[in-house]
């Protein structure tokens, strides 16, 4: 894994041992390895236990610990079938809802932020600096502060209970950080490129599409993935705006409902949990580099 955070200088080619490596070497290696293994096991075991349980029969899960699997292995896919049963947990519907919520909630803020970031970086208009500082400062607003009035607004407009509140809320909350990050990236693009295009008679629209967009792709990907996971994993916005039913509520909400109403239905909770994390884990494994970059840069969000 190569991690290239936005905040640090590019890595130096590691020809020699780093400070940490030296410290570790001298700290008598076996102990260091042991400590690392202990931490790694502590961090993996809880997930592993539930994953294993999700494949055990319902009665086994309720009566014996998952470690009994090693002396009495019983495997079933019933728990996974059960969470997709449309008469009870119906996780498939919620899975679809999550996708429906996520796609616009990523595309809308991303394109709006790209336009705004371009304007802030490369167009000279009056009041630019004040406006930029204002947008930048909005990053500090915790989303809790906005939820109560937004509920009223959405009800008044008549879109409460649809996907619209979720799309609009997620898009809005994403904007300040997205604009800030994309702006940082865009202003690093050499001015010569833009000036050359202007001399050729290109306007801001064609410069944006022909010069900027191709160069922006890595930054857009990083923020897009980050925003996708943020929306997919969100609970608070969903709880406040999506209501209880299965019409718009995302998968996290149904999983949270399962913990509340059937605290002991561990066979459903186990399989449900892994259905819900399959998307973020896949995204993480495939796009680790982008994901980490987005996460590093987006850590102040919310």
């Amino acid at each position, binding site marked *: 894994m190569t991690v290239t955070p936005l905040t640090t200088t590019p890595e130096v080619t590691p020809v020699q041992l780093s400070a940490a490596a030296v410290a570790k070497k001298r700290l008598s290696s076996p102990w260091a390895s042991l400590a*690392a293994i202990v931490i790694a096991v502590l961090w993996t075991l809880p997930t592993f236990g539930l994953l294993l349980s999700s494949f055990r029969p319902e009665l086994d899960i309720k009566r014996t*610990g998952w470690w009994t699997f090693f002396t009495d292995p019983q495997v079933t896919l019933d728990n996974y079938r059960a969470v997709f049963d449309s008469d009870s947990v119906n996780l498939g519907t919620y899975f679809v809802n999550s996708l429906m919520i996520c796609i616009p909630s990523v595309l809308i803020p991303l394109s709006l932020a790209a336009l705004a970031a371009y304007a802030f970086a490369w167009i000279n208009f009056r009041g630019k600096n004040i406006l930029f500082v204002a947008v930048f400062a909005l990053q500090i607003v915790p989303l809790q502060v906005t939820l*109560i009035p937004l509920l009223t607004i959405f009800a008044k407009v008549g879109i409460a209970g649809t996907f619209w509140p979720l799309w609009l809320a997620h898009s809005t909350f994403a904007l300040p950080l997205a604009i800030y990050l994309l702006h940082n990236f865009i202003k690093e693009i050499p001015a010569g490129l833009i000036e050359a295009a202007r001399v050729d008679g290109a306007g801001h629209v064609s410069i944006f599409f022909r010069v900027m967009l191709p160069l922006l792709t890595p930054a857009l990907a990083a923020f897009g993935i980050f925003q996708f996971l943020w929306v997919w994993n969100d609970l608070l916005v969903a709880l406040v705006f999506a209501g209880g039913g299965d019409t718009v509520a995302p998968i996290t909400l149904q999983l*949270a409902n399962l913990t509340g109403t059937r605290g002991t239905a561990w066979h459903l909770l186990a399989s449900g949990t892994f259905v819900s994390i399959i998307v973020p884990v896949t995204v*993480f494994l495939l796009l680790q580099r982008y994901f980490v970059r987005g996460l590093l840069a987006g850590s102040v969000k919310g």
Partner: protein
Amino acid sequence: MFSTASTTPEKLLQMLSALLLFAAVLGVVLFFASRVRGKRSDNLVGYLYLLPVVLLLAVGLVYPGLRTIYESFFDAQGNAFIGVDNYKTILTDGDQLTVLGNTIVWVLIVPVVATAVGLIYAILVDKSRFESFAKALIFLPMAISMVAAGVIWKFMYEYRVDQPNVKQIGLINQILVWFGGKPVQLLITDTGKLNTLLLIVVFIWIQAGFAMTILSAAIKAIPDEIVEAARLDGVSPWSMFVKITLPSVRTTIVVVLTTLAIGTLKVFDVVRTMTGGNFKTSVIANEFYSQLIRADNQGLAAALAVVLFILVIPIIVYNIRQVRQEA
């Protein structure tokens, strides 16, 4: 298009039409922007590009924020002006003081422990053969939802009555039994804030990967010449850590600590999933939700949101300053 879609095809159609509508709005903006010519064109194009953003932020962030501050001075239904009574409640009511106390415990413990674990682990696996795999293990909890993390740990903490024919299914209680102890109702016991501390463990489990990733990048950025020079001088591993590694990543540590502190102040999903804020485990962000939805006390919820805002501001300002210094 703005009504409730109930079947999957309907939902898909609604999503596509929403995206089309959005594309159309963008199209209009770009069309006018491409038509603008002349001396003042830059001004106009700039405003056009920012128009959708400014509208969304004004209606969706600025107005609601101000409105919430205003509403925090009103009663449960938002009808009668009651001055600072909601804030008085937060600072004097027994339950609310527990909420505030818990939040402070969270903010004091999570950032320090998560950063320490992240730093130690980053150093331990640095340049080892399995570095990327080892890092992915710690980082994975960061990628999944906090709801899922909550379920995973609730299973760890699960309790079964202490009877001869009943076996424990939660690992922690089983370990207690293996060592001759009695199983404990872990998430219900608030003696010594036990249940709050157990929830904190979950959040540390989630956040340590974040600390590790950033600190690891910072460690790798320490110039090799410095390390090599220290090595030639025969510096001991401990002083290498104290005199070279730590000072080199000091600003990064501060950034990680403050970032984690902000995240911790807003912790909601973990508490809500694991205890629902019952058994004296509530924190500000969870109490906000409980007051808004369950207790139907809009005024108090608004005041809690404002308190959260006030607590976050100094940390964010400090965080941004550090990031800028480092950049």
